[in-house]
């Protein structure tokens, strides 16, 4: 079996701000054609990771590769293939919307002008309007359009659904799916809205306290985690072969989210399939020391083989 092409790869990637690490020892491999969700609490290093992948920021340690090239080299070859949406949605506020598009057209040989115009027309954003006078949501849409119209092979979107209303979120997810299907693009997007992501994403990267906990196919992540519930004051012994991610207990009930390699059958526990949201929250709640190396990674799994 030939191995899937890799769109984005990081190894030991780290970024230090002063004495504090914004991201540390981050290693994962994102295959092409995926829509990957980058989830984690504020300050987990999501934006830092995306900025380094876009070549805006330099890593302090390790390296990041986009289609095999380092984005730090700032070559046209890499720039052409990456569409980056910054968290701040920077736009030239004094430009009119159509001037913003002209900017994109002049600076990107792969620019799809009719797609950009169509997208904005659909959203009722007037092309003659000044960017600075648009609403926050409309500005976010213009910024997104700047990314999408470039038709990049890798879309790096920092909080793309923030500032969008539910209808616009739905629309964006649709557009992303279409670009993945039509252009075989790869998408890495960060978000807080985990429930929105679950419907469209097929890959998940969980980042917390500057570390990567999970980076894998959504299906695998869902299949390899179980929520064990015991309705007793004192938790019974855990079944063999499970790795605890986090435990929450109340007077009457103990919930343990575990990572499993094979089906769990234990009469002492009620075994449930957790949602992505529950898994994410479990990792975010888990003490750093126990989970820093607990996440399953693709390389850990038998049969996947080395690259």
């Amino acid at each position: 079996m030939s191995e899937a092409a890799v769109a984005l790869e990081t190894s030991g990637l780290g970024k230090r701000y002063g004495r504090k690490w914004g991201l540390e020892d981050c290693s994962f491999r994102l295959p092409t054609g995926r829509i990957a969700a980058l989830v984690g609490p504020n300050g987990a290093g999501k934006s830092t990771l995306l900025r380094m992948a876009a070549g805006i920021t330099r890593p302090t340690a390790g390296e990041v590769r986009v289609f095999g090239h380092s984005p730090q080299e700032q070559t046209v070859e890499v720039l052409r293939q990456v569409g980056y949406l910054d968290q701040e949605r920077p736009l030239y506020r004094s430009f009119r919307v159509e001037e913003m598009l002209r900017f994109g057209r002049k600076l990107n040989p792969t620019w799809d002008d009719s797609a950009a115009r169509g997208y904005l027309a659909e959203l009722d954003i007037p092309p003659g309007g000044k960017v600075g006078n648009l609403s926050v949501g409309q500005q976010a849409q213009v910024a997104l359009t700047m990314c999408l119209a470039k038709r990049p092979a890798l879309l790096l979107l920092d909080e793309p659904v923030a500032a969008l209303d539910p209808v616009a979120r739905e629309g964006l997810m649709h557009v992303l799916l279409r670009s993945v299907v039509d252009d075989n693009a790869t998408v890495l997007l960060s978000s807080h809205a985990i429930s929105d992501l679950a419907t469209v994403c097929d890959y998940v990267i969980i980042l917390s306290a500057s570390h990567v906990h999970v980076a894998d196919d959504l299906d695998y992540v869902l299949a390899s985690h179980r929520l064990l519930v015991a309705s007793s004051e004192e938790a019974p012994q855990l079944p063999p072969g499970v790795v605890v991610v986090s435990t929450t207990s109340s007077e009457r009930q103990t919930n343990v989210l575990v990572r499993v390699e094979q089906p769990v059958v234990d009469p002492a526990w009620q075994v449930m399939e957790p949602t992505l949201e529950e898994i994410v929250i479990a990792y975010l709640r888990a003490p750093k020391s126990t989970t820093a190396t607990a996440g399953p990674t693709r390389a850990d799994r038998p049969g996947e083989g080395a690259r």
Partner: protein
Amino acid sequence: MIWATWRMHRSIFLASIGVSAAFAIWLTVTGLIDEHAWTIFTSHHCSLNYPGSSVLCSSAYAGRGLFSSINSALCNALPAVLGLVLGVPIVAGEIQQNTNRLAWSQTITRTRWVLTKIGVGALVTAGIMGALAPLMWWWTNVTERNDRILPLNFDISGFVDVAYALFAFMLGVALGAVIRRIGWAFAAGIPLFVAVRLGERDYIRPSLLSATSVSVSPLNPGHGTDWVLNTGFLPLGDSTPPPGQTWSSSSQAINSCLGYSPGAQKATHSITYCQKVLRLHYELQIQPASHFWALQAVESAIFLAVAGALLALTVLAVRRWRT
């Protein structure tokens, strides 16, 4: 990218052109007023030695230099202000608004991005300054500033101002790229520009071209429109002070020979006598007026070279951007 640069900085470009045009009108009007007063002064045979010989003469005398110092100051400040105003926002303006993150994720390398922006900005700077330079020349002409090689006039004549403006522009760009804040880049740029300009004027310019020495009578040390760098009594045959001595080393000996005593009305000996007895002559070290254009060229080259170094620094800072 040329269009984009123009569009991004359009308001500051247009404002600079507007203010410069207003300055041009001001300089023309005040220059004509000065010229008119000067014409009256000469046509009525007024004398510079006795300007108060008639009411007409004294009012014309006062009028001919009415705007002299203010215009002189404005002409001196212009290259710095113009260059910094246009230069500082080139990189710092984008960083402050985070639009560099947008620009740097388009299909254009940072080097090309910054070089195009600098190219357009430098062209605007040089264009404005280049258009004003002939007008400043005209103004120095009508106010009878014939001794152009003197720093007072040299700095606002010829084409050296274009080089000053380009230096100020690159200083603004580089400081903006390093400091990343418009306000702080300005605050640092003004004293730096002044320090470089005055430092160059006082310590480098006098020795840029080899100076000439002329021996003159101390009673009538005429030097025409040349720039006098040093004066003093030197041993006969020397055109520069002997080793271990300065231009003023012999003035003590001259003074004691002259025999001035406190309260004395007259010297004991004549200066000619003292020079002969002490075997000294009075020497002027000058930069002749004929060196004007050569000096303009050399000094412009120096400022452009510094601007080039600042350009390299800027490209490096932009390429190695970390945060």
